[in-house]
């Protein structure tokens, strides 16, 4: 087995959710060809691949990489916005921002759950994030300098994420697609609250308006980079599209996002910081200027403004939460011991014969 599928989950979970031991050993080549053919046919017919189906190891590894990176992005993505919770300008804005940051945590958990169905362990995933062996979206390595950044993140960063994620709702891997359906429903609130926040600033005092424009100026280009490198330099794109993990190319989605944003910026009364932005009648799309891919690579490599801060904050949060996890485990052990002691001898443990009898509401 490759490292990504090495289970830190117990065997029973693996049999239940991940692939069985037989498949892990690798079937004989004739059988493998038949399995590969069945997989290819399912993907071609737009059927979903489910956790216990046979799948090529490279497909599994590619999904684990993508879903883990996606989950990590949600978790790290809580930090730039949480930075402003205590300084939100009103109770209304504060309640909204807390709900949004809580959603990001939830999205991270849906996605870790999806990655675990492929045999990756939760602890293993967190460990890879904490040691920098798995990435998160480089957008979160930029700082949130003013309150307007909360608006710009909602409108542009979440907007770019939605453009990326809506096609993922039709991804060939069932658990990932189902997680994305849930996430996309919740993201639209994120984008709207950001847009509304910027609109309030844009219609406010001259200083508030300038603050909104400054935030948009800083977040515009990094948001365009969120779609990843241009198609001819994107290492995983072609294969992911053949597997129907991805449905559209990076450049296609980036163009879609630019086309959506231009009229929205106009309605906000703000400008986008690109002198080359103009309508191309022939293409039926907005032309836009060249992206600074050197900056993208630098930030990805770890030299962005906040890389170190984001990772060390994440590690600190994990370490500071250790006592809570230990206390919860101790409480669970104590309750289980009490139940065992109260059980008359000879009786099997367990709570009820049928789940419906205890769980019925």
């Amino acid at each position: 087995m490759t490292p990504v599928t090495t289970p830190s989950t117990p065997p029973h979970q693996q049999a239940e959710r991940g692939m069985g031991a037989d498949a892990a050993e690798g079937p004989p080549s004739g059988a493998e060809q038949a399995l590969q053919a069945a997989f290819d046919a399912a993907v071609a017919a737009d059927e979903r691949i489910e956790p216990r189906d046979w799948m090529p190891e490279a497909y599994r590894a590619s999904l684990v990489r993508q879903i883990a990176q996606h989950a990590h992005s949600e978790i790290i993505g809580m930090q730039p916005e949480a930075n402003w919770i205590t300084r939100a300008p009103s109770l209304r804005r504060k309640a909204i921002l807390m709900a949004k940051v809580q959603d990001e945590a939830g999205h991270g958990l849906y996605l870790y759950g999806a990655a675990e169905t492929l045999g990756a362990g939760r602890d293993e995933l967190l460990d890879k994030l904490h040691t920098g062996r798995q990435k998160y979206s480089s957008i979160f390595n930029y700082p949130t300098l003013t309150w307007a950044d909360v608006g710009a993140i909602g409108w542009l960063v979440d907007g770019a994420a939605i453009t990326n994620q809506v096609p993922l709702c039709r991804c060939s891997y069932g658990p990932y697609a189902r997680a994305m359906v849930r996430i996309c429903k919740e993201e639209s609130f994120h984008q709207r609250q950001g847009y509304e926040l910027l609109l309030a600033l844009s219609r406010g005092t001259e200083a508030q308006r300038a603050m909104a424009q400054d935030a948009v100026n800083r977040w515009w280009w990094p948001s365009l980079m969120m779609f990843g490198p241009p198609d001819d330099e994107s290492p995983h794109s072609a294969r992911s599209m053949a597997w129907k993990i991805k449905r559209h190319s990076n450049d296609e989605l980036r163009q879609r996002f630019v086309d959506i944003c231009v009229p929205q910026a106009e309605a906000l009364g703000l400008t986008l910081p690109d002198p080359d932005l103009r309508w191309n009648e022939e293409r039926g799309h907005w032309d836009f200027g060249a992206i600074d891919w050197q900056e993208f690579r630098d930030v990805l490599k770890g030299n962005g403004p906040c890389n170190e801060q984001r990772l060390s904050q994440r590690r600190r949060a994990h370490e500071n939460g250790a006592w809570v996890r230990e206390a919860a485990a101790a409480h669970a052990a104590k309750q289980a011991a009490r139940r065992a002691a109260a059980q008359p001898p000879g009786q099997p443990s367990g709570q009820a014969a049928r789940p419906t009898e205890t769980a019925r509401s």
Partner: protein
Amino acid sequence: MSADWPLWEVFVRSRRGLSHTHAGSLHAPDAQMALRNARDLFTRRSEGVSLWVVPAAEITASSPDEKDPFFAPAADKPYRHPTFYEVPEGVRNL
């Protein structure tokens, strides 16, 4: 989120009159914590009126392969469907 925390499958009844439906899974040290975490994770927008949490390890599944001959016996019995039968023209309420 310890490795020792078991995995729970979460089922949500979205409203009265409907069955519980699988929503996803989570880790928790015990059933009570699993329920509380499930509430926070899967019903932040009133998506449910009732929750079940089931230890994933307690689920018995039909087979390691979703396309199993286990289900084959049903495939050759079209006479179990009403569309199998011919009904003469003009006969109603059948």
